[in-house]
């Protein structure tokens, strides 16, 4: 099996899916000749031509708005938003139009669009090249939201997202775009949406995470196991909407302790949903407060981003506080 990074895995999935299905088109700012500012669409225009891979004017509302119309015409658009921080001009089209299209038309129209966009901090991007907007979208019925953490997941989940008949927001962990490398099957495969992965088995505490921060979690857990003798179960969510409550609950019922980790600000962040669900469905199993180790409730800073992010140190503190409670 070839070793790939996430960029290559995304590129590979796009290529394979486009070969498989003529109705898939790739569009966005700088995705054509340039191949994307992160090079995720490199070579696709050359291979599939300018009709299926093309640059758009600089307008996110236009990109998603047009993608919705293209879907109505029978296509399966895979628009790229250059950074997740810039998705908000298209917010209305995503949550009021794409997400509601099937429901409001009584099932007549679907919206099979997969919006790819790099998200997250840790690349010295400050306010506008660092945000993790997953919670904004997970409050929206009709949408699906997927976040891979490594190349294997990226390829399999992107394929599933593109084949899915509902609109999917596919957030790519840009901090580990190149750093996360793994063996990835050459041929096509899919990973089921809505299924979490138990990335590490353990019995003292359940850590729930997704995307780039999963790597910090795994490092923290390894250290905690080695140095503190803890046994940590790590649930990697993969799909945030709809999410795999079953796997989460199974783990929580085993460990009785929960730490949720994400980069986005804490208040009304995605972790709140997980904590609330657990506090409803597994309250009798809980032996400690449910902790959220997250970005702070501030805009994303530049110089102090290391301090802002839920780094290994903060995760370990969360683990200690929870297990020793």
């Amino acid at each position: 099996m070839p070793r790939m990074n996430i960029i290559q895995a995304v590129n590979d999935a796009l290529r394979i899916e486009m070969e498989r299905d003529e109705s898939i088109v790739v569009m966005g700012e700088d995705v054509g000749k340039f191949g994307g500012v992160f090079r995720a669409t490199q070579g696709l225009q050359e291979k599939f031509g300018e009709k299926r891979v093309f640059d758009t004017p600089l307008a996110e509302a236009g990109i998603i708005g047009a993608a919705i119309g293209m879907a109505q015409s029978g296509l399966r658009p895979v628009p790229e938003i250059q950074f997740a921080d810039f998705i908000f001009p298209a917010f209305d089209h995503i949550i009021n139009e794409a997400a509601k299209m099937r429901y409001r038309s009584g099932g007549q129209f679907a919206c099979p669009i997969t919006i790819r966009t790099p998200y997250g901090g840790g690349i010295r991007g400050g306010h506008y090249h660092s945000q993790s907007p997953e919670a904004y979208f997970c409050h929206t019925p009709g949408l699906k939201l997927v976040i891979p953490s490594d190349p294997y997941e990226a390829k399999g989940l992107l394929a599933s997202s593109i084949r899915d008949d509902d609109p999917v927001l596919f957030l790519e962990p840009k901090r580990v775009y190149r750093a996360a490398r793994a063996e990835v099957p050459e041929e096509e495969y899919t990973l089921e949406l809505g299924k979490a992965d138990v990335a590490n088995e353990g019995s003292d505490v359940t850590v729930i995470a997704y995307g780039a921060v999963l790597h910090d979690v795994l490092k923290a857990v390894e250290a905690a196991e080695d140095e503190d003798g803890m046994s940590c179960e790590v649930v990697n969510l993969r799909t945030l909407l709809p999410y795999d409550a079953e796997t989460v609950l199974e783990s929580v019922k085993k460990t009785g302790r929960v730490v949720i980790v994400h980069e986005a600000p804490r208040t009304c962040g995605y972790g709140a949903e997980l904590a609330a669900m657990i506090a409803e469905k597994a309250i009798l199993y809980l032996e400690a407060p449910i902790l959220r180790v997250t970005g702070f409730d501030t805009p994303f800073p530049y110089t102090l981003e290391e301090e802002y992010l839920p780094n290994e140190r903060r995760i370990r503190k969360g683990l200690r506080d929870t297990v020793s409670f």
Partner: protein
Amino acid sequence: MLRWRGGRYNPAFMSEEIYRILKTNGRLEKGRKTPSIDDDRLRDMYRYMLINRLVDERMTKLQRQGRIGFYIGSVGEEAAVIGSALAMRDDDWIVPCYRELGAALVRGFSLYKFCCQLFGNAEDPIKGRQMPNHYSARDLKFTSISSPVGTQIPHAAGLGMGLNIQDKKNAVLVFFGDGATSQGDFHVGANFAGVFKAPVVFLCRNNQWAISVPGERQTASESFAIKAEAYGFEGIRVDGNDVLAVYETVRKAAEKAYAGDGPTLVEAVTYRQGAHSTSDDPRAYRDEEEVERWKERDPLNRMKSYLKHRDLWSDEEDDKLRDETVKEIAQAVKKAEKVGPPDIEEIFNDVYAQRPWHLQEQYEQLRGLAE
């Protein structure tokens, strides 16, 4: 091009050029020839307008009687809507906003289904999910209506781009109001269509008002049509109360689109004779006199006079169509009113192609409570 004499406040509107074929009295404007449209089609134009008018009148009453919750009509704007819908081919796409029942009628949308949608009952094609006037009819290539003003414009551009990509030779007709041109969505939609030469006819129903806000508060430009310059395609002002002029203009724009020559913006200058919707009372913000002046330019009267001049229509036929239509509407209402509401399970369907666990759980909770 003729001089426009029907403007409101905006002095620019007064002097602007506008395309018209029929005078208010139904006679040809000087220099215009009888357009080469066959007689049946001419009669259809009027028929659809009359049916549209009668439906609007009936449904507005139905709302006043409290039998439906809301209604939004198009009295005065029938020519702009029906003339343009008729100018397209049946397999072209129509992308509506909420005031284009006429276009749905042209496509063959049944009055019964329409009424079911108004009642939001179990036979409503959209399953009781949206307010009255927000139907969809995919089989008729009539897209899903939503309330947010302007969002359909980039969708239409994308539809057109999609047709190009798939080498389909159809076009798209998208409707929106004067107010909608102020939205960013108008801009991005028109701009995408220009850049990608999408086969789209942008039909701006300039009915002079956006609820209580008059046209000159929407824009300082000389007209709405001129905005096409910003996107590199043609903009045309047409008398929106002259169904022949609308038809001919949109037909040309559609042919341009079929030929691969890209989009056109058509500004149909018309007037919203009624309230914005049944929730609105325009006496709070506009002169009744203005309304009266515009009633004199009513699109139905104009076309009827024209047909009568040409012996294509008679008062008897008019009465007959009225009677038949009123009856048909009454039957549709009666039948639809008897249908019960959708089952509560419909709350949980169509959120996704497959119902996920959490919706199943919520459905079961609600079902348990209901039993």
